[in-house]
């Protein structure tokens, strides 16, 4: 048990950065146009898919303001997991044990990352998974989960597909891939390095801009409308 863990056990106080994070969304207004919100598009590389035992090895994020990607406002780092890297994960993200040997542990970058996300909505492709991992560590080290509302581009992509097909039978076409790279290819987006946290974050950001402008034939203006569009889809199933 590390020093910080020990600290956590006796001091359940919430870290100030997380307090701040919470305050941003206490009185959250969904009615504003999308261009007035800031988004952080986030992707993480993991040692595996189980939040209970696997860990984050790399974080990548980029900001969107005024519905434009601000490429220089990004967050990118490797972190050293507590347990050694499993071989099979290296095969996916190509991050080798040597690369993360000198990387800091997650607790050292976490505060900066939360600060980077503060005030922004978090966008991710299958964002629930990334959030499960990040919340696990914020709970452990900062005293609670993130309060940022999240938007899942995978869900938006499903929605868009349903909209463009409008064909009842195609909904049962199981060959459709919602994999990030496949979607980028399908929509003709500029393509990025796969399985690199920042590359995937950029890819997701492009996908997000694309979908937001294409959904409802460009008719989505406020955040609420985006949420409602997603909800109506959920009611169908």
């Amino acid at each position: 048990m590390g020093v910080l863990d020990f600290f956590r056990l006796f001091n359940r106080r919430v870290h100030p950065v997380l307090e701040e994070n919470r305050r941003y969304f206490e009185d959250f207004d969904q009615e504003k146009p999308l261009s007035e919100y800031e988004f952080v598009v986030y992707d993480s590389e993991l040692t595996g898919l189980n939040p209970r035992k696997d860990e984050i090895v790399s974080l990548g994020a980029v900001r969107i303001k005024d519905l434009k990607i601000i490429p220089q406002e990004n967050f990118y780092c490797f972190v050293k997991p507590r347990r050694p890297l499993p071989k099979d994960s290296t095969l996916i993200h190509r991050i080798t044990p040597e690369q993360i040997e000198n990387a800091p542990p997650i607790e050292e970058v976490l505060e900066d990352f939360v600060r980077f996300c503060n005030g922004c909505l978090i966008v991710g492709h299958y964002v629930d998974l990334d959030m499960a991992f990040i919340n696990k560590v914020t709970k452990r080290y900062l005293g609670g989960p993130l309060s940022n509302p999240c938007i899942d581009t995978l869900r938006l992509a499903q929605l868009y597909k349903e909209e463009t097909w409008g064909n009842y039978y195609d909904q049962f076409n199981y060959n459709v891939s919602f994999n990030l790279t496949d979607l980028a290819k399908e929509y003709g987006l500029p393509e990025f390095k796969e399985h690199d946290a920042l590359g995937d974050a950029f890819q997701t950001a492009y996908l997000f801009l694309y979908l937001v402008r294409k959904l409802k034939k460009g008719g989505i203006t406020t955040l609420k409308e985006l949420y409602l569009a997603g909800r109506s889809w959920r009611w169908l199933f």
Partner: protein
Amino acid sequence: MTRQDKKDVHSVTPEVIIDFLKKTIPFNELDEECLMKVAQNCTIDFFPKGTMIFKQDETEVEYLYIIQKGGVKIYLKDEEGMVTLKDFRGEGSYIGALPIIQGTKANLNVETVEDTFCFLLKKEIFLELIEDNPKFAQYYLKSFTEKFLRTAYQELRQHRVAPRTEGTLYMFSVHVGDLVKGEPKTISATDSIQLAAQKMAEYHIGSLLVTDEKGDVIGIVTDKDLRTKVVAQGRSVAEPVANIMASPVETISSHKVCFDALLTMMTKQIHHLAVEKQGKIVGVITSHDIMVLQGSSPLYLFREIVSQRTIEGLYPLSKKVPLIVRTLIEEGAKPNNITRMITILNDHILDRLLSLMIDKYGAPPVPFCWLLMGSEGRKEQTFRTDQDNAIIYQDPENSRKKEEAREYFSQFGKEAIEHLVKCGYPPCPGNIMASNPKWCQPYSVWQSYFDEWILKPEPEEVLNATIFFDFRPGFGSLDLGIKLRDHLTDLAKRQEIFLLHLAKDCLASRPPLTFFRNFIVEKDGEHKNRLDIKKRGLVPFVDFARLMALKFGIKETNTVERLGLLYEGEHISKELYTETVEAYEFQMQIRFVHQLEMMENGQQPDNYINPSDLTDLEKQTLKEAFGVISKLQSIIRDMFPMM
């Protein structure tokens, strides 16, 4: 990607922008530091297809837009709402530079024609770059002037006055050097007058340059000198030409325009001028050559061809065809009409030539037909197309007649080819010409050729023979050619294996797809980085039309007309027909303009286009044209599924 110091809050350089800019003119001129500054001040935006990015006279331009992916069209709307398409910009191009530099609102409408991602560079930063980097600035200035000039030229062309004045225009645009028909003919000063007259008669020319013992040109002797100084004065023809020559010879520089030459002739009251290029006499032009220019209309040339009474008189006529083509292109004629015009003129030259030969040699022992192959057969000739021709004659009744016919036509073929070469049609490198005994045969032999190709197809042979399948009767007893065409049309449509070989060939070459930046171009050699528009672009259309025509029993040989008949017969859809014809004609047009340009620069025309010489609009259209090739190929694949 590089990790930065921890104090930089885990932020890295946006390499997506830097990498892209390094490949993009003129940003590739910038050093690392500047690039970094650009990257730090760019945002990325997305515009779905059909978004208006700029509205003419309305939009305040805050950014330079660099297109990362997608494309935009730029157009102008005048007071009456008339829309003029100005340009198309694709990946790596920019929009907004001119309004930023001039500090005005958007000067044109810009609308995305594809889903488009742009890098948006703050205008202040762009202006700083312009200020600090002369090379960078130059690019934009140059591109403005070029675009301006191009537009101006187009407008000029639109508002040009009636074609009547064209003859005069040529006087100002055609260089004297362009009229020179070949090496000057000379005679030594000490040679006799009689020899001079003989030489002039032999070459069918009206003047000879007179040289001294060193070979330098010291004078000129013309047929007028023979009349006035020899015959009229009763001078002996044994005297040396030096006694009657005009010396020194009047010269004119080859880069002067014809108008200058005409002025010189008029002031000096002479009809011949020696053309000088870098201090060397390269030929002689006559007042007649210039007067002919006055009438560069197809009709004028046509009249000139049919009125020729000697074979030699035909020699210079084909060289005037390019002049006419230029007029036609400028008047906006469709390429297929231009090729047909060229074909008609060439057909008339051929007709005249062969008629005059028959007058000279007497009637042939049996009726014959002159066959035209390849592009001549398809009525798709451009400039200086190689000869592809053959003779087919009626089967003689007996062996005596047979021998007689063989002799007559082999002689006739040989001479016709020689005359045609002198007319400026280069011989066929593959020796597919009427002078080759193999291609100068009676009907029965020709029929057996085609039977062989169609019924027992060897892949190699079939491919070498494709140009034969485009034959067309050109002169003589056309019914012989028609009969042969009927025979092969009937035969071919039922021969799946033969058609399969042709189909395979259609699929063999990949269309030169398709990116703005990366056309498939020749990788090395003389034509490096150029696109062979004939081989890569046009041939697939020709092959497709031929295959389909043979399959569906269509006798026509012209590609566009073949496609038209295929559409009428409902073998291809209306959409495909329109698309194919447009794609094909656009490429023909590009090729024409390219070849014309080369000829006007004194080069031999070829088919190698440099994609960087094309505008974005042309590139985009070409890209679409190439896209049609893939469609044609998939149709063939569906039709011949066993491949």
